[in-house]
């Protein structure tokens, strides 16, 4: 079995660079998720309209008018 196990020598610079790139991209994506989450909390917590982007205006979204 020992012969079948491939032995990788010293890590090539290329592998390190690729790992660094993947790690960097991963962290950027995590950061993006965190920003989106934070923005959502800020917008919803701030009382911003959360139904305004629907296709149909709901009656409760319309300004009150006196009849």
């Amino acid at each position, binding site marked *: 079995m020992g012969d079948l196990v491939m032995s990788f020598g010293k890590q090539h*610079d*290329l592998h390190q*660079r*690729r790992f*660094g*790139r993947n*790690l*960097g*991209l991963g962290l950027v994506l995590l950061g993006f998720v965190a*920003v989106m989450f*934070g*923005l959502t*909390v*800020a*917008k919803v917590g*701030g009382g911003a309209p959360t139904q305004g982007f629907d296709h149909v205006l709901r009656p409760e979204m319309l300004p009150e008018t006196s009849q």
Partner: protein
Amino acid sequence: MTDATSTLPGTRTGEAGFGDYVALLKPRVMTLVVFTAFAGLMVAPVSLHPMVAFASILFIALGGGASGALNMWWDADIDAVMRRTRSRPVPSGAVRGDEALALGLALSGIAVVMLGLAANWAAAGLLAFTIFFYAVIYTMWLKRWTPQNIVIGGAAGAFPPMIGWVAATGSVSLESVLMFALIFMWTPPHFWALALFMKSDYADAGVPMLTVTHGRPATRRHIVVYTALLAPLAIGTAFSAIGGPVYLAVAVIMNLRFLQGAVAIARRDDAAAEADNYKVEKAFFRFSLYYLFAHFGALMVDAGLDRFGWGIW
């Protein structure tokens, strides 16, 4: 801000690292974008939720970085010739040109849409126009065509504080125009000083900088004229709604020193500059960076004083 190295064009081999993609976004230019956009947002008379403010600055910076990547894609040929830029990711061979284009376009789209969602669509529209102005009007058109490239193209760098202001208020106003004008008028003397001590870089690359088309003595005179035009604008901003005593003091001191430096540049010729390795020109260029940071920093200090009720006017 100069980064002349000995890396020759096309000498990088292997895969690009994460840092190469970050370098495409011109991080040092982004610091200026972040700072001035932050100032525009902070001096606006509307307070934003900190998270919304943070996200707005982030996406304005990302838009600035995206336009930097588009600039590097288009300018790879002249970047390879100039000592200052030949180690950039595309001319050095670390990143392919089409990768830079793809990254620039993708980040532009993300930055504009996200700024629209985070702040408002007026700010997002202004950011989209800024990216277009820098990548198309300046990079593709003005830069290789006219010695006024830096004068008109400077508008691209002047938009961030206005975008920050619009992100907070939702509209453009006189104060945001004043902040725009400050950077717009500051840009030509800043870049012409750089062109003076970059010697033959622009000529070698065929870029019609003022030093190439009108000569170096004319460029020295232009620096004085633009610095003299900048001073009243910078000092006058102190008496607008965003100004204050701190800004006035900073503007008077900084503009006097800036003018002094410009006159010193105009009084020299290239022989004198060569003799001391462009000491005066380099000092003026360095000071121009402090100049801008000091002005926008002072605006924020005055805005802070106002908020605590310590504003004088």
